[in-house]
């Protein structure tokens, strides 16, 4: 390794400390969910560090961790102070579980989470025996970070070189900026440690899944779904490399989980976390923006078709939507300034109208094959989602699972549209990207499967879940908005 242990420690923990401060400012505390707390810190800390480096890059200041780390820590301390000053918004607590579970079930869940965390760390360390040199990890993400670091910021030199030697240079900046954070510690380019800030999110994804499932399922059932979703083929999800796939999956899962907590409690804090996670999501990849839009469309459809009077979020809560929009605008501004273009945006309408009939068949058959014949690539969650939607559509669209199920249909429609308008060879594009792109929603689908299971009193965290939910005022408020 090129970096000293102290530098590796700083690469890992300085953003987490910033995250802890930001999470405090959002109004969340460790005791709200000890399992999810490190996830919130990693997500907000990563986003905050990247935001600082984005500004740093425009200013052309030197990439030197001795200058950047104190600013990151100061921002974390200021956020924590702000959080202490403003206090916590009320109504944060969620309904307490009414089911008593045997001790060994809880122990089984804890042991499994520990094992999955250890396995992820081991995989990350093993991955680091290979320098970043091949695949999307190298060509798209590390290359962009290298070009940015070498040019010394977001300047004309970066633009010219990225257009000439970059690949997919229009992709969002979150991942490359975090790799630059690692470079700043060596004040030189790195080919191994560049992955470290990204690998944190693979670990956070395991904890996020565990926390989200544990909130709605009894420990035994949560452990089972967690294990099922964890064993997706590694070649598909590239869990511990420097690609953005685990980041997209994490952003979507945290947004979905925070959104569900928001629906259940109506507390503004969860709305803040929901929009922060959406901001992270749109900063990862274009697919992240598509998934974020799908989530919002799912929520909006629920509100519009609701048969009861929907309780719209307060403007103060919706104001946080400015955050994902700001991240989108930041990426858009970089592309506009340097003339980065997505090849897919060249003439989508002409391709759509001209080749619709020729392409729709192979796309549908490609997805059907992926969902039903390749369960190792997606844990079979798409298959069960489609089967349940056909068998019992009312059940899949009932309660808090409704926006999630609708959002997934919107995402599927979005993917089909992308493949219909692709300027690349369709077969090649489907084979090379569909397993990866669909993997990004697998952890969130795991949560959806958990919600379906939770409707069954035997699996849920609540005894007679529906009756218990109906009797609590906070849950009633949640179901009102869902119709």
């Amino acid at each position, binding site marked *: *390794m*090129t970096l000293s242990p102290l530098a590796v420690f700083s690469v890992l923990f300085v953003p987490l400390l910033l995250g802890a401060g930001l999470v405090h400012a959002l109004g969340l505390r460790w005791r709200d969910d000890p399992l999810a707390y490190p996830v919130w810190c990693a997500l907000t800390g990563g986003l905050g560090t990247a935001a600082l480096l984005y500004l740093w890059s425009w200013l052309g200041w030197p990439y030197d961790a001795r200058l950047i780390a104190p600013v990151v820590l100061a921002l974390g301390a200021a956020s924590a102070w702000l959080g202490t000053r403003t206090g916590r918004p009320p109504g944060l607590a969620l309904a307490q579980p009414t089911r008593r579970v045997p001790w060994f079930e809880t122990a089984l869940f804890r042991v499994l989470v520990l*094992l*999955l965390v*250890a*396995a992820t760390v*081991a995989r990350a*360390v*093993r*991955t*680091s*025996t*290979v*320098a*970043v*040199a*091949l695949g999307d990890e*190298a*060509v798209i993400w*590390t*290359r962009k970070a*290298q070009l940015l670091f*070498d040019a010394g910021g977001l300047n004309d030199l970066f633009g*010219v*070189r990225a*257009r*000439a*030697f970059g690949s997919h240079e229009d992709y969002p900046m979150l991942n490359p900026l975090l790799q630059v954070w690692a470079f700043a510690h060596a004040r030189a*380019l790195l*080919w*191994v440690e560049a992955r470290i800030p990204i690998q944190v999110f693979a670990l956070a994804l395991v904890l996020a899944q565990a926390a989200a499932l544990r909130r709605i399922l009894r420990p035994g059932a949560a452990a*089972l*779904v967690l*294990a*099922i979703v964890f*064993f997706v083929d590694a070649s598909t999800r590239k869990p511990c490399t420097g690609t953005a796939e685990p980041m997209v999956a994490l952003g979507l899962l945290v947004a979905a989980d925070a959104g569900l907590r928001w629906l259940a409690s109506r507390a503004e804090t969860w709305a803040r976390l929901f929009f922060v996670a959406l901001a992270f999501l749109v900063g990862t990849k274009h697919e992240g923006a598509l998934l974020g839009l799908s989530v919002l469309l799912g929520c909006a459809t629920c509100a519009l078709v609701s048969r009861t009077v929907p309780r719209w979020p307060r403007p103060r809560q919706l104001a946080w939507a400015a955050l994902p929009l700001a991240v989108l605008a930041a990426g858009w501004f970089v592309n506009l300034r340097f003339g980065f273009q997505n090849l897919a945006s060249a003439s989508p309408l002409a391709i759509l109208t001209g080749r619709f009939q020729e392409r729709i068949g192979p796309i549908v058959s490609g997805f059907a094959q992926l969902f039903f014949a390749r*369960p*190792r690539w997606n*844990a*079979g969650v798409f*298959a*069960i989602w489609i*089967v*349940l939607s056909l*068998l*019992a559509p*009312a*059940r*899949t669209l009932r309660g808090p699972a409704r926006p999630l199920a609708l959002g997934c249909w919107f995402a599927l429609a979005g993917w089909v549209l992308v493949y219909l308008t692709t300027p690349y060879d369709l077969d090649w594009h489907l084979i090379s990207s569909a397993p990866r792109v669909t993997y990004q929603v697998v952890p969130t689908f795991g949560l959806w*499967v958990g919600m*379906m*299971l939770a409707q*069954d009193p035997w699996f849920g965290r609540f005894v007679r879940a529906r009756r218990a939910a109906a009797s609590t005022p906070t849950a009633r408020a949640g179901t009102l908005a869902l119709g």
Partner: protein
Amino acid sequence: MKPSRRSRRSAGASLLASAALLAFLGWRTLAIAPRLPGLFHFGGIRNGLSWSFERRVQRAIAQAPMTRKTSPVETTAVLAMVKEHVELHAVVMAQLEHGSAGRQLCTLVAMLAFPRFVTPLPLTEKEQRRCRELAAGHGLYALVRADASQSAWQSSATRIARTGKHELWRLEDRDR
């Protein structure tokens, strides 16, 4: 009161859905069961923590696609040649092999030789012009197979170095 036909149908569908969910859980549990012992596999961690940077680079080279004419030894030699003879920020137009394997090898050398800009051939007219512009002041090079037939550009270029199977040429970085 007797439940309506609609509610009975809904209850039946919900029961079917529950059965499908249980079948799904059983199916996936059986599918992942053989992979559970993998959770206890902690081999390779010591290597990940202790290997030198050069060894990690060697491992990346060993994972690159191989053809009959390339080998990790040759790729290592090409990388060393580029690092030794090409100054930083110079542009190297490279064709190490034909086809996709050649492009991947080129990507590998480009990544590991950065900030020397190794770009795979063939290039369009516009891309070549851009390469010349970017190379101005730093140098423009060609990295080609030694057994390739003699080309017209080689008359105005200087051969800098060679490995067993590849040659590095310095080109004029401005159009005359």
